[in-house]
């Protein structure tokens, strides 16, 4: 088990080192003069020259690389070309919003997708199966922005049930502000016993989270259904059936655990993907998350920000995979010896 863990960690570190080298090369090779971007569109030649020195762009490339790696090792992702603030602190400010959104989305997807996938697999060709397959196809293929607009029209415009956009109402921001602890507004407001803010944050979270949930939901339904169908045909499942065990017990308590590893891998993948892929959702719902930040960074050629996001997503991806590997090892004792 320890051996297994150490190997996975080393592999992750290797992936991250590769990623950091790649990001360095891309920053230096990419077109556009970072110094010119740094000083803005109205800068004088002298200002650009000064920026070149400030940013260390006049030094030899190997020296720049050494500085870059040293900074990275200290968690320093450089300065944003747009705002001149540390990219790390900006990401720290934007990331929790995305995490809150994506985590809620994935949780919704799991809570709905997992049981539906199981029910579908229990009676292939049955009603649940038909519904599940239809929903899975719809939720995977429906364009995100379309779904987002649809939800807004129905729940904001027509029914007036849920807010249009934002993370929390402006009144809460002005009068019942949430002190930042975790950066998850729902969690922070709860921790402070600030109910007004909590319900506002929760109401704001629903529509974007449901939008985010659509794609992973479809994937999860299909993954669970497919892997469960494989598992259900196995002898050990049939044996339990032949010995009178109840269908639901077999499906949810036994077979699901066998079907979980491939599903978990998919969930981990969608999670990392969703973190940057949330741009459309974040933009429609005006959610100040990493997707918005990245889009803005790309538009403004803000290389340090783009690369910072890349590294952070890389770390999240590696950590997530490690966690999934560990969970799978926890589920399946045979893996631990691999």
């Amino acid at each position: 088990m320890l051996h297994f863990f150490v190997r996975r960690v080393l592999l992750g570190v290797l992936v991250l080192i590769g990623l950091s080298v790649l990001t360095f090369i891309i920053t230096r090779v990419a077109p556009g003069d970072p110094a010119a971007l740094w000083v803005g569109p109205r800068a004088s030649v002298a200002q650009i020259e000064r920026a070149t020195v400030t940013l260390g762009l006049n030094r030899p490339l190997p020296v720049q690389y050494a500085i870059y790696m040293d900074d990275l090792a200290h968690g320093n992702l450089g300065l944003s070309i747009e705002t001149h603030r540390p990219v790390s602190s900006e990401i720290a400010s934007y990331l929790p919003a995305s995490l809150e959104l994506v985590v809620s989305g994935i949780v919704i997807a799991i809570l709905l997708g997992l049981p539906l996938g199981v029910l579908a697999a229990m009676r292939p060709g049955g009603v649940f199966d038909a519904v599940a397959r239809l929903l899975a196809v719809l939720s995977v293929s429906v364009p995100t922005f379309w779904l987002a607009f649809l939800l807004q029209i129905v729940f904001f415009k027509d029914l007036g049930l849920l807010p249009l956009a934002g993370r929390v109402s402006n009144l809460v921001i002005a009068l019942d502000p949430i002190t930042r602890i975790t950066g998850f507004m729902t969690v922070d407001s709860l921790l402070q016993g600030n109910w007004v803010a909590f319900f506002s944050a929760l109401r704001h979270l629903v529509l974007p989270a449901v939008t985010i949930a659509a794609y992973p939901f479809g994937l999860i339904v299909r993954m669970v259904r497919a892997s469960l169908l494989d598992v259900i045909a196995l002898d050990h499942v049939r044996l339990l059936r032949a010995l009178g065990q109840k269908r639901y017990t077999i499906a949810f308590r036994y077979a699901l655990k066998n079907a979980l590893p491939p599903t978990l891998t998919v969930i981990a993948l969608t999670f990392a993907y969703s973190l940057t892929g949330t741009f459309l959702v974040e933009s429609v719902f005006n959610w100040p998350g990493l997707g918005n930040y990245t889009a803005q960074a790309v538009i403004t050629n803000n290389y340090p920000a783009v690369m910072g996001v890349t590294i952070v997503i890389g770390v999240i991806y590696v950590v997530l995979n490690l966690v999934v590997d560990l969970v799978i090892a926890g589920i399946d004792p045979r893996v631990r010896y691999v």
Partner: protein
Amino acid sequence: MALLSMRGVHVVVDTAEGPRTLVRLSELELAEGEMLGLVGETGSGKTLTGLAVTRVFPTPSIRLQGGSIELGGRDLAGLGERELLAVRGREVGVVFQDPNASLNPVFPVGRPLMDLLGLHRSLRGQAAVAEAVRLFQRVELPDAAALLSRYPHELSGGQRQRVMIAMAIAAGPKLLVADEPTTALDVTVQAELLRLLDDLRREAGMSVLFITHNLGVVAHMVERVAIMYAGDVVETGPTRAVLKEPRHPYTRLLLEAVPRQGQGRLKAIAGTAVPRSEIAQGCAFASRCPFAQDRCRAIEPALEGPGVHRAACLRQEEVLHV
């Protein structure tokens, strides 16, 4: 009095071209406390016959088309899925062929057993653990208490088979369907398991449908055998009689093919087994039978004979006296 009585049991598989017959059983009976050996080549339909009792088939495309399966006077074939639930495990226990695939690799072996005890006997917590330990001890598993929390891959094949037997008898069924429980194991283990099954049968007055393709194994332990070919019983009777004086050419060939020391799989019999579905009329064995005559291909022989030893062969008297 017969505990189990199967008549006209018809198992089909749904295919694109319509249902295809896999098993068409004329009759099979099992007395209370009796161990019956169901013997036949691979593909002859032994497993499906055994599974027909609980109606848990390998795939949803296989189903029971017709016939009656009377267990203790009640026809299981007429029961719905919900009523069958009460039969499975409680009245009929099942042991599968492959001990490697029949235990869930991601659960400790005690877990499904204890869940079954909770389900069938309402035993939970400490009571379930105690009973599980007792059952493990009963199937002669060493260090039973510790074994409960072990994973299948930590057990030997024989131990896994014993775990399965413990699960099958957990609810005290009247009938145990043991589908080649020994095939995957080596000889000494096979013998031990057979003895264990025989002990359990005697102790609990349980009937055992013992499925095997090894006549040698059957010879010592089983009072009565039924020989299957192409989805039907072709000969049945007391083990001694069937082995000594086979009335069906197929049984004869089987006996000639029995490996030395009753070990290993059957030697090949000339020709290949013909699927039941391809037999339009006449005797199913005709294409491979050295005794076959024209009338064999026209008339389907019924299971008949003097007394309890019966065979489905038009020329059984000749076969007997060759």
